[in-house]
């Protein structure tokens, strides 16, 4: 089996490093960071934190070097989904391509380029320590299922889930993976956006009563939209938020990391995604709309 990880940042590296520990899987990691690619090829890819993993995927910065793939795992930031899939479309032509990205809207973009798409949501998180080395911050499951408008087969979904689970990334194959996706979407819309606006780490934002009230409003709106879409939630995002406070008290959500580094954020795929689906289903989302506009305003401030 040949699997390509498209976008090998922190999340992509968790997948690539685990998969490359398997003897029967050939792993290719594509990333635009030449430093990260060179480091992986010289010394391997190393994870540290939740677990220690050291393996040797083949890393490339030139997508033309990719051989034809059986599976693609897209792990770029949401704003690079289209360009990354386009750059690797030859290798992905016959592959089942799975998004493990944040938010909603990535599968739709992938389906513009390839025929077999898998919806995916992953809970593990990490951050880059240095080229070739990733801090693995939190563990957790990954949920995958066919993306209905342009689906991979359930056999392909199951095969990918089994392979990931064998590699140490516990993955659940589901006929409808929207429940996990919307659980994490709504959780992230509350945590990422509001931590970014207040510059508070996750747990500190959650225990600040004033901020928590806004988080709860963002979550309520998201749940109403999910309900209108007919999505059966994997978990209640409010419970997920509550149970995450202690374990992630000082955790900086990825969007907060982006804001501190003045990198474009995934807000369009998170609160912006809830607003878009809210419009489709006729559910008003004033709090998500406010968070979306404020984070976009924050991004605009860097260009002044």
């Amino acid at each position: 089996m040949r699997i390509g990880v498209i976008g090998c940042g922190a999340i992509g590296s968790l997948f690539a490093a685990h998969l490359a520990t398997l003897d029967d899987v050939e792993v290719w990691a594509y990333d635009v960071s030449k430093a990260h690619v060179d480091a992986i090829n010289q010394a391997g890819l190393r994870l540290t934190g939740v677990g220690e993993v050291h393996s040797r995927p083949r890393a490339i910065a030139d997508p033309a070097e990719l051989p034809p793939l059986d599976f693609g795992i897209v792990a770029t930031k949401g704003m690079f989904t289209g360009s990354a899939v386009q750059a690797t479309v030859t290798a992905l032509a016959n592959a089942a391509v799975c998004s493990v990205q944040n938010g909603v809207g990535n599968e739709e973009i992938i389906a513009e380029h390839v025929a077999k798409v898998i919806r995916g949501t992953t809970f593990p998180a990490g951050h880059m320590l240095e080229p070739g080395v990733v801090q693995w911050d939190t563990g957790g499951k990954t949920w995958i299922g066919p993306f209905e408008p342009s689906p991979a087969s359930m056999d392909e979904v199951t095969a990918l889930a089994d392979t990931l689970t064998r590699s140490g990334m516990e993955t659940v194959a589901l006929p409808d993976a929207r429940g996990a996706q919307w659980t994490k979407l709504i959780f992230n819309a509350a945590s990422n956006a509001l931590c970014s606006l207040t510059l508070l780490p996750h747990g500190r934002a959650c225990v600040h009563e004033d901020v928590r009230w806004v988080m709860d409003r963002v979550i309520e709106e998201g749940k109403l939209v999910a309900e209108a879409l007919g999505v059966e939630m994997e978990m209640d995002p409010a419970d997920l938020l509550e149970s995450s406070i202690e374990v992630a008290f000082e955790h900086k959500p990825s969007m907060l990391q982006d804001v501190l580094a003045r990198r474009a954020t995934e807000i369009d795929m998170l609160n912006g995604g809830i607003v878009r689906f809210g419009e489709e289903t006729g559910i008003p989302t004033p709090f998500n709309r406010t968070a979306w506009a404020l984070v976009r305003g924050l991004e605009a401030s860097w260009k002044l």
Partner: protein
Amino acid sequence: MSRFGRVCVVGAGAIGSLCAGHLGQVAEVSVLTRRPAHAEALLRDGLRVSGKSDLHTRVHASVDPATMPEPDLVIVATKATQISEAGAALSGRFPEAVVMTIQNGVGAEEIIHRLGPWEVVSSVTFMSGTRESDTHVHYELDTATWIGPYPPSGADHDTALAVGHLFADAGLAVEVLADLRPAQWSKLIFNASVNSVAALTDLPHVALYARRDRPTDLGHLMFALIEEGKLVAREAGIELFEDPWEMNVEAVSRGATHHEEYAHVPSMLADVRAGQKTEIDFILGAVVREADRVGADVPLSRALYQLVKGRDRSHDDEVVL
């Protein structure tokens, strides 16, 4: 001679220094500071005003209100966030004095009123300056200060007029209003929306604040916040002096702010950038409190107010990013 022969200015930031520097021309002025070195410098060097005025004034200065000559007028010119501390320093003293507040937003006059028997006059100032040093302030905008009585304290229009005459005699532009609230609330609603969005986005007051084309243009949010503020004013029986949305549109299309690189940095954004707590409780917080009092629904104002409270918390030492 004005009825205010002796004036005490509490807090010598830019606005306090401008007041002290000008009023010292027509009254005996003392300045209450927080730092001993600041008081010593003022005693030694006096206070210099440059820019729109060119003045040098000798002042009395101290960190201890007990050493102040009994004033006829006290001008509390601290930041709104220090109003309780300033009021506590005055509490039990100068019962015959008129006390004037000149803070951003709304709420300082009420806090001062609760702390003593003084007649309270409140004001909204549009003058601005930059503190160059402890003893030198540069006077930038010589626009007016609006003054009106705070009626629950027993102050009336005549009290406000007397303070207004003192300011005018000292060369400061002033307008005295029988009811300050229409002007105060117009500025409050405008400031509350601009300052809160700026504090959260780090974005100076640029054209995006009035644009409503794309869904994420900040004009939508600004408009919604201002509508909530107008609802509160209406429910509280305050007829606004100006439309805050028009103030927003005009401010971003006028003069220096037309060029985004020179855009105005609202005071709460300056606070956030300096790592200081904002005056949110007196600005958007005042709108939300009044909304609660009159029973108006202001969900987005509440959300922004509470997010800025969270942003203020990020300056605490134990928060390390």
